[in-house]
Structure formats: structure tokens, C-alpha cells
């Protein structure tokens, strides 16, 4: 219905029709726009000259715009329950409206009313007819105390003073207590994790870390490594040599008497020493410095290899076997052979 009234910029012949007073417009007119349309307004036909006075109308519109600006700019002030500025504005508007004859001014009046009503609603919501007030600033202060704020000693104690600092986990502390107010469903997580692992990122990180120290450490590294390897090998070699020495010295004393393998390696006082002896002796056998053979009773015997006997390249028939021993067997052998003391004396100083 109101679509019959249209306004376009160059058209001064538009008839305003019968729309006088409120009801025509939906579009809220901004103060800026109005300035442009001021001189374009077409005089609607059928309205008395007095009502059509453009100067007067301009005045009314200007006053409305002032009121609108006043309300918008001083919103906080208007909301203050201590004053009646909002009511004053409405009274002003009422006075102005008495002179309004046409839609354009009425639209401004409507705009002002909308603003004022919003403010009125907000102002009303501030009213607490009963019960204590709630001060968010005080609330904040209490929260800070709860969270364990560490106030600095020389705090002046003024409001809004941001002295002091919150300790670690302050917000967690508040969260833990607040949780009680919530009926949150616990979040779902697979207990054993998922298959979607992400290997690539860790590799990158490791690479970066390695790059940096390498330059500095290059000079130091090789010597250290050498030393380590030496000490490992050394200990074993020394021990092996020592055992060879033992065996050879026994043979030097009595080259006819075969030495039982078991009697040689077993230390009746220590099972672990026994195992070590077996281990070290195996090197001697591997390197062809010592040989193992079965005597007439079928028991293993051990003897050093004569220097002339050994042929490099292994023309000698070699056999391989795996020796195992457990504590029970160890004790059985000790009993069976009546071994009283170790033929291989324990090293005086433990290596490493």
C-alpha cells in the first residue's frame, strides 16, 4: 500500500498521496542521507501551504536529528538511573511532534522513539527492586583472591590497581571449583590411543638437534670413541691372554698330563666366573691357540696348540659347538670331578 509513494532523486513530480503521519516508511533514515534529500522534496498536493513550509520542516527535522544524536552519543548518561534525561528527551520529542504534518518528519520521530524505547528497556532492566546489588568489580577482586593472587608488598591499595601477579595454575584452580556447576559430559577418548601415529615430525626435530652440536664435538668425538673401544677389547684380550698363559704354564709343568676342560674352566666358588672362563676360553679355541679333544673316557680335554702345529688358513679340521651351562650342572660337575679350587685364578683387579 505504501509502495505507491516512492522517492527518487531527480523526480520532483512525485505525488505524495495521502500518506501523512506515521506508517509510510520502513527504512530508517540516517541523518547523513537527509541532508541530501533536503532540497529534493516534492511538495505533496492537497496540503496547506503552512504545513508545507520547507524552512519549518527543515527546522523540525534538524531538531529531531539533534535529539537522536544526543541519545546516541550520551547513551551511558541516559542510562544512569540517577537522572531523568531520557524522559526529558521524550518530552522534547512530544513537543516537536505537535508540529509534524508529513511522513518525513514523522519517520524521524519514529526513529527517535525506537532509540528511546531501547534505552528505556535497558534502564528498566537495571532496576533491582529487591535484593543486594551485584558489583562485577568486587566479584573480580574476590576471584583474584580465590585464585591466589600474590599481592606485592608495597601495593598502594587503590581500586583498579593491577599490582600483583597470578600464580601458575590459577585458572585451573578456578576451573576445578567451577566444574561443580556444570553437568558436562566427559569427553570421549580412546583408552589405548589410536592407530594414527605421526612419525615425520619427530624425525625432523632430531635432525635439527643433531646438526648443531656436530661441528663443535667433531674434534673430541673420535678420541673418546677409540678409547672406549680399546677398553672393551682390551679387557677381553687381556683376560684371554691371561688364561692362555695359565694353560701354557700348567702344560709347561707337566706336558704329559692332559687337563680336563671342566676342571680348567670351572671355578667352584663362582658360577659367573665359570661362565666367563668358558667365554674367554672359546676365543682361544676359535683362534686356534688351544684345542679341545676327547680323551679315552670321552671327557673333553684342553691343550695349547704347539707353535708348529698351527696352520694359518685353517687346514685343521674344525668343529663348532655351543656350550651351555646352568647352575645345577655346574654343581654336579663340581661334585663329580671333586673340584676344590679354580685352575684359572680370579683376576686380582676387576676390570672396569
Amino acid at each position, binding site marked *: 500500500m505504501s509502495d505507491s509513494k516512492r522517492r527518487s532523486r531527480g523526480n520532483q513530480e512525485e505525488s505524495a498521496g495521502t500518506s501523512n503521519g506515521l506508517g509510510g516508511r520502513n527504512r530508517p533514515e540516517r541523518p547523513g542521507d537527509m541532508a541530501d534529500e533536503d532540497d529534493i522534496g516534492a511538495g505533496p498536493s492537497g496540503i496547506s501551504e503552512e504545513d508545507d513550509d520547507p524552512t519549518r520542516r527543515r527546522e523540525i527535522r534538524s531538531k529531531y536529528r539533534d535529539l537522536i544524536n544526543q541519545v546516541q552519543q550520551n547513551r551511558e548518561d541516559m542510562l544512569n538511573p540517577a537522572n531523568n534525561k531520557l524522559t526529558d528527551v521524550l518530552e522534547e520529542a512530544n513537543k516537536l511532534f505537535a508540529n509534524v504534518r508529513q511522513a518525513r518528519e514523522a519517520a524521524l520521530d519514529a526513529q527517535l522513539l525506537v532509540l528511546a524505547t531501547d534505552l528505556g528497556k535497558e534502564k528498566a532492566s537495571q532496576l533491582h527492586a529487591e535484593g543486594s546489588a551485584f558489583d562485577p568489580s568486587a566479584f573480580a577482586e574476590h576471584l*583474584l583472591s580465590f585464585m591466589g593472587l600474590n599481592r606485592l608488598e608495597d601495593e598502594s591499595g587503590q581500586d583498579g590497581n593491577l599490582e600483583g601477579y597470578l600464580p601458575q595454575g590459577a585458572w585451573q584452580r578456578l*576451573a576445578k571449583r567451577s566444574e561443580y556447576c556444570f*553437568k558436562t559430559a566427559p*569427553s*570421549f577418548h580412546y583408552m589405548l590411543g589410536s592407530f594414527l601415529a605421526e612419525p615425520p615430525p619427530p624425525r625432523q626435530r632430531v635432525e635439527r638437534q643433531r646438526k648443531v652440536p656436530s661441528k663443535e664435538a667433531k674434534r673430541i668425538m673420535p678420541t673418546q670413541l677409540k678409547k672406549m673401544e680399546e677398553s672393551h677389547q682390551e679387557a677381553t684380550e687381556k683376560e684371554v691372554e691371561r688364561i692362555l698363559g695359565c694353560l701354557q704354564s700348567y702344560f709347561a709343568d707337566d706336558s704329559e698330563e692332559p687337563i680336563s676342560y671342566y676342571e680348567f674352566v670351572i671355578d667352584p666358588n663362582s658360577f659367573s666366573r665359570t661362565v666367563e672362563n668358558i667365554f674367554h676360553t672359546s676365543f682361544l679355541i676359535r683362534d686356534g691357540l688351544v684345542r679341545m679333544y676327547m680323551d679315552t673316557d670321552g671327557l673333553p680335554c684342553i691343550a695349547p696348540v704347539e707353535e708348529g702345529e698351527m696352520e694359518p688358513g685353517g687346514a685343521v679340521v674344525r668343529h663348532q659347538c655351543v656350550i651351555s651351562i646352568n647352575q645345577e650342572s655346574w654343581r654336579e660337575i663340581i661334585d663329580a670331578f671333586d673340584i676344590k679350587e679354580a685352575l684359572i685364578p680370579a683376576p686380582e683387579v676387576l676390570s672396569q
Partner: protein
Amino acid sequence: NKNKKKSPLWCSRSKMTGLQQIFILIKDQKKIPIRRADIGKHVIKEYKAIYIEIMNRVCRKFDQVFGLKLVEIDPKNHIYILINKLEPIHGEPVSMRPGNPKTGLLFVILSVIFMKGGVIKENLVWNTLKKLRVDPGEKHEEFGDVKKVVTDEFVRQKYLEYVKIPHTEPVEYEFRWGLRAEKEVSKLKLLKFVGELFDQDPQSWTQQFREASATETSSQRS
């Protein structure tokens, strides 16, 4: 038997119930409400005819097995959230995990809104947070982009509503409780904690106490 296989209802109901439960549980991890449309798209698909039956089963399972409630917070758009059926007992820990700091932040905002009658301008929230050393203009140690957490994350999770105030120039926003908060948060418990902080009887805030008690009673009935 051939006909049975071709029928859309041949697919195992219990399997679909299970699938829907998992779907909902995973969606719930981020606390973003679940839309019925999504359930339809990813789980039910062409078996729409039995959607209601599956939904009933799912609700029952959640209720009896997990102690969870699937609540429709938006009947018009069919949006659901999962909440805990069980009330937390004071003195006993709610969960073994360390508290999520965001819960504390959310609590502060919800409290201010509630104590101030249910709607507040955004400035009140920012000013209160600033006093707690949380400045929306700066990156915070724990929360990062605070403004984003409050106006985006909490809003998407439906804990808060962040709405333009009409006719404001420049544009201003106001905060209200979101649909999730209405279902998930106990106003009475919140008021009690506020009372503890102020060392004040919660009943001294008569309007808030009245509203909190009323909400508690009605939610217990549902």
C-alpha cells in the same frame, strides 16, 4: 531372504545404534552441538525410516550405559548436546583430569551475566576480564586470543550468545547465556559459589535466587 537383503531395513539396528553413539561421542569432544542433519548424512543415510527408532535406542544406551543425556537444545533446528545425567557431588572431584582453564573463564562470564539479570553489554565482560588480567586486546598466556575464545568458540559451543544490540552506532553487542549453558549449568550451584566468594548468603540476591531455584526444580522434572 533375497527380499530381506534388498530392503533398506536389513542393516543391523544395533550396529547403527553403535555407530550413531560413536558419532555423537566424537562430535561431543569439541562440545560443538550436533545437528540431526549431520547424523542423517553420516550415519543413518538412506535408512531414514528407522531414524526415530535408532534415536530412541541411542538415547537409552547413553542413559543406561554412560549416564549421559542427549538433549535437544533447539527443537526447531533439531540440534542436540550431550550432558551428564549425574550431578557432581561437592567434595568429590568431578574428573581426574586437571581443570581446563577455559572452564574458569566461562564461569566468570556466565556468573556476571546471570547476576546482572541475564543480559549484559559486552563492555562489562571485557572490563571484568581485564581486572582478572585477561585483556581481549592482548594475547593471553593461557587463553591466547581471548576475544576469539569468548565470542567465537563459546558461542559455537552454545555456552554463550553474542548478539548485536539493534540501533546502536557504532555497533555494540550483548552477551546472554547460550542454549547449552541453560541445560548444562546449574544456576543454583553457580549462585552458591558466588556467595562463597563474597562470603554472603546466596539468598541475599533474592531475584537471582528465585530464578535459580525455579530453574533447578524445572530441570529436575525433565
